[in-house]
């Protein structure tokens, strides 16, 4: 598996660390209520198909990335800097 980092170009899987569902970029408001917070913290879909995950270019530029890929075909559909995505600015 290879990911194309927007800054570094196409790189081998070994340079990246998998962080989890990109839902982490959609943090609820502090007063959003228990249900919204429970879903944000605990509930994850496990789709056969397209997923949107956070990856970290650990052994490269150190950027957090949002990777869209298909878990059935293993196709990598899109890689963008998390800092360019709403909610991704540190």
């Amino acid at each position, binding site marked *: 598996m290879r990911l194309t980092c927007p*800054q*570094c*170009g196409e790189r081998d899987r*070994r340079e990246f660390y998998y962080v989890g569902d990109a839902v982490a970029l959609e943090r609820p408001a502090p007063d959003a209520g228990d249900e919204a917070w429970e879903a944000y913290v605990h509930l994850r879909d496990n789709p056969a198909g397209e997923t949107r995950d956070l990856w970290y270019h650990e*052994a*490269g530029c150190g950027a957090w990335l949002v990777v869209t890929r298909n878990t059935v075909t293993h196709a990598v559909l899109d890689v963008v800097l998390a*800092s360019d995505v709403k909610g991704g*600015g540190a």
Partner: protein
Amino acid sequence: MAELIAKSPCDGLLPVEIGGVTLREVDLGHLTALAPHRGKEKSFAEAMKAAHGLTLPKPGRATGKDGKRLIWFGRAHVLLAGPAPAARLLSHAAVTDQSDAWAALRIEGEGVEDVLARLVPIDLRQQVFKRGHTARTQLQHMNVSITRLGDDAFMILGFRSMATTLVHELETAMSGVAARRAG
């Protein structure tokens, strides 16, 4: 007060020459990581130009020359190698002294690309990785910065704590390439 004697990261290990490829340690002077504050990227670039005469490199590039270089060093930061950073940069960027944190190596000679190809997962051949190109990547399992300095010359920055391993890996690859060439 005790007299402390500074030791370079690769003290006692280098230089070595194997099969026409030489590996030696270089003293780059001050090493400073500079990360422009958000919204200050442009003013930082201007201040850098005015203070040190260096153009801010794009991702994957290094500017300047021996003794004074500005190396892209990852997302939203660069490494100034050589001069101490001018005080005026402080209002535009987060500034971190890393002078003692890195082992700096220069590896050169015919066949140097073959040596690095044994250790580094990215394509460093001349046609894709030209002079002034730089990358953050791995050398075996170590995170490094690699910059092409010339047709047969690269600079490698590795963590100081791993200097001995870094030299060992490079020496092993140099020996392997030399043996293949001799055969």
